[in-house]
């Protein structure tokens, strides 16, 4: 039954009631405790915990330092294709949007890779929209073959695959899987994904576990902040991460906290998520899962990203673009549709300098493929 069993268990759970029932003592015990349980994790997301933000920050900082040191892993996304059959209401690549659809040729993949590799980055995350017809697993494998020449670690953020397909991807040299559930609340999920294969909530929910079983070294979850009350979503994502950690200790489990931004279509996030809220979720997740990888992307603005260093973040993207062929096309000065707007346009070199000034090293390489 997988993680869905947990989702079912919390379906009728009154989150607001539980959150409002948390007392200062509960929060204090959670902040000072070790090996927190689900209730304690929830208490850190409660209104009562707001007064303990600084204490949580100190603890989170200390745990992160011990586990990850003064380092931040750097990577960059590379969009292979924006063909998509899904109708996600918040996404610039939605099938409903009349935008120029584009898919990189293998030659273009090479030029993009070359451009990225020249920045020194060795970790790459490749993305596609969801179209098995236009960008089938075979195409992605061909792209991986090209990318292997330039990068020592390749992660994929594409439509959910079967376990066998994940296994094939691993055999081809992929070591990381990123797949966001976007929103764990089922009703909201169906409302946000009115059409396309993504409507299969369970197939997506189980994808991280299929990837773990297939031998992915790192598995990254995410919720799109703004689609639901962030407390409920972060709680269910935290439990999902713990579920995977418990069952697949050989995989490194991570999470991302993407916050909704304006895009090519017109969608306003129904729930607001403040900077203060993002800080709190990072701290709560760190206290709950000390070894969890936490990614903060270029959706956030430079100043905020800088302030998050040291609080629990372990990975950052740099030199990003959400346009297919963004690095080579941008040079030609063409306008192309983006999946979402990014706020931090700084180059890898600039991000590294900022990290250095904060006493952190931006790590460009932290893995290599082990081909026989």
């Amino acid at each position, binding site marked *: 039954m997988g993680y869905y069993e947990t989702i079912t268990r919390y379906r009728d759970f009154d989150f607001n009631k539980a959150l409002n029932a948390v007392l200062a003592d509960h929060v204090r015990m959670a902040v000072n405790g070790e090996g927190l349980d689900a209730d304690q994790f929830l208490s850190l997301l409660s209104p009562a915990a707001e007064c303990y933000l600084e204490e949580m920050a100190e603890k989170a900082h200390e745990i992160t*330092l*011990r*586990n*990850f*040191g*003064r*380092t931040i892993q750097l990577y960059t996304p590379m969009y292979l294709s924006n063909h998509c059959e899904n109708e996600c209401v918040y996404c610039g690549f939605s099938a409903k949007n009349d935008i120029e659809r584009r898919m990189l040729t293998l030659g273009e993949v090479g030029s993009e890779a070359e451009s990225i590799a020249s920045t*020194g980055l*060795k970790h790459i995350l490749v993305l596609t929209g969801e179209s098995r017809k236009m960008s089938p697993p075979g195409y992605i494998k061909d792209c991986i073959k090209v990318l292997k020449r330039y990068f*020592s670690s390749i992660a994929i953020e594409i439509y959910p695959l079967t376990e066998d397909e994940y296994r094939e991807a691993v055999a081809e040299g992929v070591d990381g899987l990123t797949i966001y559930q976007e929103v764990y609340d089922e009703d909201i999920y169906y409302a946000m994904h009115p059409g396309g294969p993504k409507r299969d909530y369970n197939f997506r929910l189980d994808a991280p576990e299929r990837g773990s079983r297939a031998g992915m*070294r790192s598995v990254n979850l995410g919720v799109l902040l703004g689609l639901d009350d962030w407390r409920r979503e972060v709680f269910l994502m935290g439990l999902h991460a713990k579920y995977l*950690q*418990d069952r697949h*200790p*050989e*995989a*490194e*489990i991570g999470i991302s906290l993407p916050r909704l931004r304006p895009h090519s279509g017109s969608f306003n996030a129904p729930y607001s998520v403040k900077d203060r809220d993002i800080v709190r979720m990072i701290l709560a997740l760190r206290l709950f899962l000390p*070894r969890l990888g936490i990614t903060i992307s270029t959706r956030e603005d430079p100043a905020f990203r800088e302030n998050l260093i040291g609080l629990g973040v372990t990975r950052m993207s740099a030199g990003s673009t959400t346009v297919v062929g963004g690095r080579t096309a941008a040079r030609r000065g063409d306008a192309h549709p983006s999946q979402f707007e990014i706020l931090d346009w700084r180059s890898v070199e600039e991000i590294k300098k900022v990290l*250095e000034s904060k*006493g*952190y*090293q931006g*790590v*460009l*390489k*932290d*893995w*290599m493929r*082990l081909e*026989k």
Partner: protein
Amino acid sequence: MEDILSIGGKRIKNRLFIGTGKFSSYSVMKRVLEESAADVVTVALRRVDNASERENILEYIPKKCLIMPNTSGARTAEEAVRIARLARASGAGDWIKIEVIQDNKYLLPDNLETLKATEMLVKEGFIVLPYMSPDLSIARRLADAGASAVMPLGSPIGSNRGIKTRELVKIMVDELKVPVIVDAGLGSPSSACECMELGCAAVLVNTAIAVAEDPANMAKAFGEAVKAGRLACLSGIPPKNKYASASSPLTGFLRQDD
């Protein structure tokens, strides 16, 4: 007489081995290695980028240091063996610290896979130092398989909890002929000193130095603690008594025949 540790035919004066992860920059790491006069440093091969001039960690390690690549990231014996071969092919020498970890929550080593990797790599001519959970029988098998030393953990990596495995490590020190080097968990110089007092041949420290506010001075402090503990061990530490015994007893004036 000079007190020298000999492993794999190398003479090692400084018994503080240093790990190179978690530093805020390679230049900070370099200063730590220089100022602590480290002889042996371990480097995760996963972090080595030989293609890069500015970002190649190996370029920041003083020439006098012996580089012991480690197989961080290996989940099985087979992966550890492949990483060791890659390390050798990249010119990092024959020393290898085996690290096989299937558990990302606690980062505890898998002794069984570690033993398998040790057997294979010794046959290939590597100087093998396996990182392990302290266990006498596995340690004996590792030594029989040709490990040049064994590296039991003091407490989980990065935990800074000190030598929580003291009793088990002490038994290993007493029973094994190969050097016992405590690796992981030593959060303060006093815990490093304690390991050396127990009779460990060396200690390996990374986190406590790398994340200190002043890493270079923390490394020096660890170095002094290691020297003190070693000297104490060689000098014969008197046993602990349950009751106090005064240095100048009040009845000291009584002679045997009074």
